[in-house]
């Protein structure tokens, strides 16, 4: 890509990433949540990869970080849901943490934790699909 694209991508990516984190963390207060924020996080990574290409980012042949974090995130979501069986009302997906005061950042019990985990899951899954399309394509050309 040209110098303008690279410079603009450099300047913007941090803000995009920060905006994704904001959407995820404030998911129980403002519109948005884990899905939207996770997709924005993946967008930040994809912007970097599209602007700079493979070599400056040191993308390896086996880029396993994204798929591992995706699997770990969905495993933790399941574990948190199963934990509802043992605490409180014995229901799957039981919201067992104290709800706190409505409208504060730390409130709503386990919902912010679910938001963060789902955000990681979505970001890692979209990034995994994109990386697979890039890396396996270069495997064809060799």
């Amino acid at each position, binding site marked *: 890509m040209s110098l303008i694209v690279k410079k603009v991508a450099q300047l913007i990516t941090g803000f995009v990433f920060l905006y994704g984190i904001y959407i995820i963390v404030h998911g*129980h207060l403002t519109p948005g949540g884990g899905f939207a924020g996770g997709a924005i996080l993946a*967008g930040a990574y994809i912007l970097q990869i599209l602007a700079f290409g493979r070599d400056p980012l040191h993308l390896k042949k086996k880029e396993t970080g994204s798929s591992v974090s995706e699997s770990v995130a969905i495993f933790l979501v399941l574990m948190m849901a199963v934990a509802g069986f043992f605490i409180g009302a014995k229901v799957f997906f039981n919201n067992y943490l104290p709800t706190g005061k409505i409208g504060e950042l730390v409130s709503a019990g386990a*919902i912010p934790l679910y938001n963060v985990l789902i955000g990681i899951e979505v970001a890692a*899954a979209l990034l995994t699909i994109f990386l697979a399309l890039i890396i396996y394509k270069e495997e064809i050309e060799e």
Partner: protein
Amino acid sequence: MELTLSILLGFMIIGAIFALHAKDLLSAVIAAGIVGYSLVICFLLLKAPDLAIVQIVVETITLIIMVAVVLDSTRQELSVKIDRQQIINISLAVIFMLVLVFFFIQAINTLNPFGEHSLRMASAYVGETASKTGSANLVTGVLFDFRGYDTLGEATILFTAAIGVLTILRIKGKK
């Protein structure tokens, strides 16, 4: 409001038809983007900002991926000859579509008017989500508390999609 929605829906239909008939696959992909981005404005007009955020981000990412795929492969559409088998298929599709439209109209006539619903579950959610879950955003409260199974299913679908892509696109087998 209904006029604006109708104009947007008209745009979406035109974009979809153009995407079907465009000679260049790149312009077909971009015309398919019209449908997604008009849907974003529809969601905003219908007061669903959560859906609008998700739709605009996912639409952008899928468009980028589709453009990358189209630029890598061919940009020309494959030509299809119309023979007897094709005519039978097309007429069957048209008949099936007419039957579907007939039953769809019958079903729509029994629904409530647009914007007035009498769903008991929905009114219970609207009233009590904030006090029961402590979440100020109603949509997130419903998604992660009352409808936790739905969210788990969606996350599982993404997980399965990523695994499927990794499995199908792999050229060399595991040793």
